[in-house]
């Protein structure tokens, strides 16, 4: 039995069984698919259903969605599906356009029904013979098709009910089923009978507050839900997989169990790392090349030296710039030993630089290994799902000899361009999997504090062309996390796309034309990335006849604080990383105006952050100094109101004005 071809196979040398494991059923026990059509008449409850936009019912209500997947049929699998929905708007009629994807050679539709139940009770049947075959993709003898049917007579107020049983070969090694849709679901049921010859597992996640239950009955996994509302979409919320209820169904490698998976995986990977990093020849070459004397240096000195050597000497293959990629490589293949190859060619992957650091650390008898991490902008690592496919990268973890598990370890991202001891922000906040000789262990990845990521902007603002336009000129630079993602992004862009991106960073848009935009230190990770901008705005008309002119001092030279909507918050507010923004701006008076009274200084201090605004009057205008220190990367829904209040106040002060009086200077 082989995985079916159109799904993504689970990579990894994985092992095991479930946040709920499934006991293997008896071989090839044939089960009748319990999928049947719904009633041919609307129930009283269905009749009464109407659009109720205030309560999230607008276009349709899914009355029933049932799936039965039997993968324990020898070489075959069968999927039964039943869908019943009440259509409430024209926009929802498209759900009556049905597609059943399958392979042309081995897919077989056993059962089909499809009907429209009109508001007056008339039933319009669509027979199986009306299904039409549409080729989707064909290569040689392989053809992927869809059977298609458009249910007739669909109008708002009707109920549609359709379903099928499809038999085909193979099975799905890993499947994620979202339990919340754009429309409310009244009744949901998913039943999975896994292949009996492989251990299987499942995991329900993000079901808090929802009426969703699961159980294993007769070696079937059954998940039942009722009244599942569409997920709430909010600004700055965690990524989709972390806020939508979902069911993950997957197989474990043969011979493993749910309980032993991470332990076995950790041991296996630790042995692999040990094999690569503790060979005498490798250790000797590493210490020689990096000029580290194991007898005279401390662990910290050695690691810092190795970290700096990587920064200065190694081209990370995953971080190459567009220009570097243009170089034609006759032989870009790496050797068998990633560490020696790295030393020789000065090119390598993140994995190679990680191994180099581990080699150095272990040469000093430290406990060093890999830590597998997930990009939290995509999804978090869930230890309840036994699958290595959750990870997006690796870092290095170092524990000094004699330290305990409670001591804070050192986590390093060699070659990342970050200062020693910092990790890319997208790996922070969630859990990672630390590889140890005793197995795999979950570890929370720390955030850096805001002081290590400082964005600094300095510039001038002045009117020109007889007060027709306003020209802003400033330079922005950043340390720590501030420039990390942007530097990587800019380096990968082609010259023309890079120009567009830099223009955007300078605030180019409908209201502003960029006069000049430049980026500096792009290819020098040790120097702060600098963006120098000069923009012109023509949407700030000065009324020359007015006694007083009020100028909003904010513009693209500050990062706008997010606007959060009023009301209840369901999900945490997630920022990229804690940071400090500092701005100094000299604003000149418009022609024919002189500066008025400077507004009072402002200081806001909250658990979320600190804001300071100081405006000083000068002979020619004002000087504006602004500091925003955003300390917390994640804010719980309970604290939403206070956070919003802080950000609103910051926004309000950012929108404050500088007063200019009509008259001549001096």
């Amino acid at each position, binding site marked *: 039995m082989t995985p079916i071809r159109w799904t993504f196979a689970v990579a990894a040398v994985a092992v095991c069984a479930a946040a709920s494991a499934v006991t293997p059923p008896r071989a090839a026990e044939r089960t009748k698919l319990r999928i049947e059509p719904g009633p041919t008449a609307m129930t009283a409850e269905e009749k009464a259903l109407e659009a109720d936009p205030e309560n999230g019912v607008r276009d349709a209500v899914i009355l029933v969605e049932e799936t039965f997947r039997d993968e324990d049929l020898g070489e075959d699998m069968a999927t039964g599906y039943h869908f019943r929905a009440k259509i409430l708007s024209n926009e929802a009629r498209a759900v009556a356009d049905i597609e059943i994807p399958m392979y042309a050679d081995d897919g077989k539709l056993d059962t089909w029904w499809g009907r429209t139940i009109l508001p007056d009770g008339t039933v319009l049947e669509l027979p199986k013979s009306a299904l039409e075959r549409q080729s989707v993709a064909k290569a040689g003898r392989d053809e992927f098709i869809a059977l298609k049917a458009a249910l007739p007579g669909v109008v708002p107020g009707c109920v549609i009910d359709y379903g099928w049983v499809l038999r085909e070969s193979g099975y799905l090694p890993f499947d994620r089923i979202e339990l919340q849709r754009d429309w409310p679901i009244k009744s949901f049921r998913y039943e999975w009978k896994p292949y009996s010859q492989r251990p299987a597992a499942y995991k329900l996640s993000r079901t808090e507050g929802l009426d969703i239950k699961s159980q294993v009955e007769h070696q079937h996994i059954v998940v039942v839900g009722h009244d599942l509302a569409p997920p709430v979409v909010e600004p700055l919320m965690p990524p989709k997989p972390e806020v939508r209820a979902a069911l993950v169904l997957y197989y474990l490698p043969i011979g493993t169990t749910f309980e032993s998976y991470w332990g076995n995986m950790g041991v296996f990977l630790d042995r692999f790392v040990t094999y690569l990093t503790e060979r005498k020849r490798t250790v000797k070459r590493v210490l020689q090349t990096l000029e580290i004397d194991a007898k005279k240096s401390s662990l910290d000195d050695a690691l810092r030296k190795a970290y700096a050597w990587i920064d200065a000497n190694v081209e990370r293959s995953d971080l190459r710039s567009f220009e570097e990629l243009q170089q034609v490589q006759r032989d870009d293949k790496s050797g068998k030993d990633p560490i020696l190859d790295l030393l020789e060619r000065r090119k390598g992957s993140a994995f190679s630089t990680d191994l180099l650091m581990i080699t150095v650390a272990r040469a000093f008898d430290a406990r060093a290994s890999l830590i597998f991490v997930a990009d939290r902008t995509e999804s978090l690592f869930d230890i309840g799902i036994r699958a290595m496919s959750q990870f997006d990268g690796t870092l290095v973890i170092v524990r000094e000899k004699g330290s305990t598990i409670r001591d804070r370890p050192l986590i390093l991202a060699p070659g990342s361009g970050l200062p020693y001891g910092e990790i890319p922000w997208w790996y922070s906040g969630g859990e990672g999997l630390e590889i140890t000789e005793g197995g795999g262990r979950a570890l929370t990845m720390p955030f850096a504090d805001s002081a290590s990521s400082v964005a600094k902007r300095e510039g001038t603002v002045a009117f020109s062309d007889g007060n027709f336009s306003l020209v802003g000129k400033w330079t922005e630079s950043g340390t720590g996390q501030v420039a990390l993602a942007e530097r990587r992004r800019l380096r990968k862009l082609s010259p023309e796309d890079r120009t567009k991106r830099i223009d955007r960073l300078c605030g180019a848009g409908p209201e502003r034309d*960029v006069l000049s935009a430049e980026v500096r230190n792009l290819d020098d990770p040790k120097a702060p990335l600098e963006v120098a901008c000069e923009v012109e705005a023509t949407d700030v008309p000065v009324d020359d006849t007015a006694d007083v002119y009020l100028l909003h001092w904010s513009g693209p030279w500050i990062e706008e604080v997010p606007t959060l909507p009023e009301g209840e918050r369901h999900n945490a507010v997630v920022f990229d990383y804690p940071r400090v923004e500092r701005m100094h701006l000299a604003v000149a008076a418009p022609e024919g105006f002189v500066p008025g009274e400077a507004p009072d200084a402002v200081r806001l201090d909250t658990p979320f952050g600190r804001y300071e605004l100081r405006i000083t009057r000068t002979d020619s205008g004002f000087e504006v100094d602004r500091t925003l220190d955003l300390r917390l990367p994640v804010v719980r829904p309970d604290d939403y109101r206070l956070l919003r209040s802080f950000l609103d106040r910051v926004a309000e002060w950012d929108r404050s004005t500088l007063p200019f009086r009509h008259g001549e200077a001096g």
Partner: protein
Amino acid sequence: MRGLVSRTACVVAVVIAAAMPPVAEARIPDWAKAIAEAAPTIGPEIPPEPTRVLLDETTVTVQPDGRYELRMRRAIQVLRSDAGRFRIGKFHYDETTCDKVRSRAWHLPPFGRGRRNREDAVDVTLSDDFLTDSRTRWVHVDDTAPGSLVFFEFEAVVTPYDLTYDTSFGVGVRVDRSRFTLTTPPGWTVRFDWLHADGPDPEVRGETRIWELRDLEPVAVEPLGEDPNARQPRLVVAFDPPADARVSGVALRDWTALGSWFESIAGDRRAVTPAISEAAKGIAADGEAGALRRTRETAKFVRDRVRYVAKELGIGGLRPHPASEVLEHLYGDCKDKATLLQAMLASEGQRSYGVLVNLTTNDTVSSSVPSMGAFNHFIVAVPLPADVPVPNEVSGATVEAGSLGRLLIVDPTDEYAAIGTLSSDLAGKTGLVLADRQSALVRLPEGRAEDNRVERRLEAEIGPDGTIAATLVTTRRGESATRARRAWRDDAEGFRKATARALDDVWPRVAIEDQTVEDEAADGAFVETARLRLVPLRGVPAPKLLAVFPGALGELPRVSLGRRETAVVYEYPRTLRYASVVHGIPEGTPAPSGDEASGDGWSAVSQAAVEGDTLTASSEVVLSRRRFEPDAFRELKKLWVAARRATGADVQVRP
């Protein structure tokens, strides 16, 4: 950074020059060898585009029976590492009319020998249609690098419905040579026409004609830019057999012939059945106000009740399903919906005509060389009596069509356009009105500024504590209504959020206490009413100024002109009209100064007055011109500044 670019590029050039193997040894066909030998060398700088097309060639060889052999060849030089998508050669074809589809691809890398790809080609269905015969053949090569030469060749035998061919020159990247070659049997005549740009006469070699364009620049997609398809030279050719020849495919000697032919395959589909009559009668029952109202209600029925499902298999790509079937299923594509509408109108004694038009590209219709390829959409024209004045609400969709009289244009497929308005996709397009021997080309009405109106009325009250309570009513008509309706129906929550964001930009932290939408008023307007409240924040002084026309400029989009080299094209002309009343302003507050400005194709005017504690202000911006060439950007900036002045008035809300 400049230093890095130059250094790297030099390395690239040197490496490529040294590594290029002799073309003669490469396992590529002779036509490709000739191109490879003449391929330009890559210069020291990083090129501005990822690839260059050295040759883009289409060859049509017509057989005496009207079928033709189609061959397409493309030679691509890879210039940069980001040329991945050009590793795939694509050939669009129709499974019903194309036979013996063959494809080949070769790669001549900068290192090593050239070779042919031996992997299977892939046929994919990319169309959004529910059921379709349209396929795209993909064939790819691996591991290209800067300096690679890639060659694709596709062949097919086509049994056409009509004896014409439409082709565009230019493919979105720089093209050195683009060529179309047509060979006909002896005795056949060939007509051609260039659209979008002037093109050369063909080079004639016996029965073969070759049209060639060189050095075609890539066409960029830009915001508020012209449709890129309409900037590519387009050639339409017709190949007419001798009068006595028996051929598959119809010869379209004039537009009337096309109209008659289309009627011959589609005319019977409009047959009126009892079910159609009954449905039409049901609609007309309360339609005593006359034929126009009945027409509009019937069109609305078809627009709203028949869902869009395109089943375009075989001749079904051109021929509608029977109207009775469309009514029974309540689904169909544009021609199905139009056909049902025609049948329903006919059942009530109302004459109508089908109209072929191109929904997506401008200027596809040649006056001299008819072709079915000019069109991709089907709508309806309904004659209006000449002696009755045309009501205002439909005048923007009404056209004088010569001997066919005055016609109301109706698109029953566009679910968001009110009947009586014409979408910006159709405005100004040329369509073929299908009236058998009277079939004729008609230019659909250009949109007028007055037809696409946004009217916004604000009534605000400033409380003693600085709280502002307001009601904002926005009424949209024409294209503006169509777009708002689409946004509202597709995602009401998103629509609400967008409204809130737009208001928040002008009135920071404004709360929308209530928002109601009438998405299609009797006159086709989209009416949005929002009750707003703005409460000062504790600890922060309330703003001194309040924008009098909130969100006004959102209706007049702008683009950055700093680096722009192509025309700015507004999708439709428009009128923005605002009226605001603000009560409770501080005593002695001066009225914002009024303004009046106008230019070539636009005007902007505002006025305001204060009486007691009440400000009354109005503003109107009219944009009747759609296009601003780069040399008119100063005029465009003047318009934007004038519009900003006319709609940017603030009033002082506290002393």
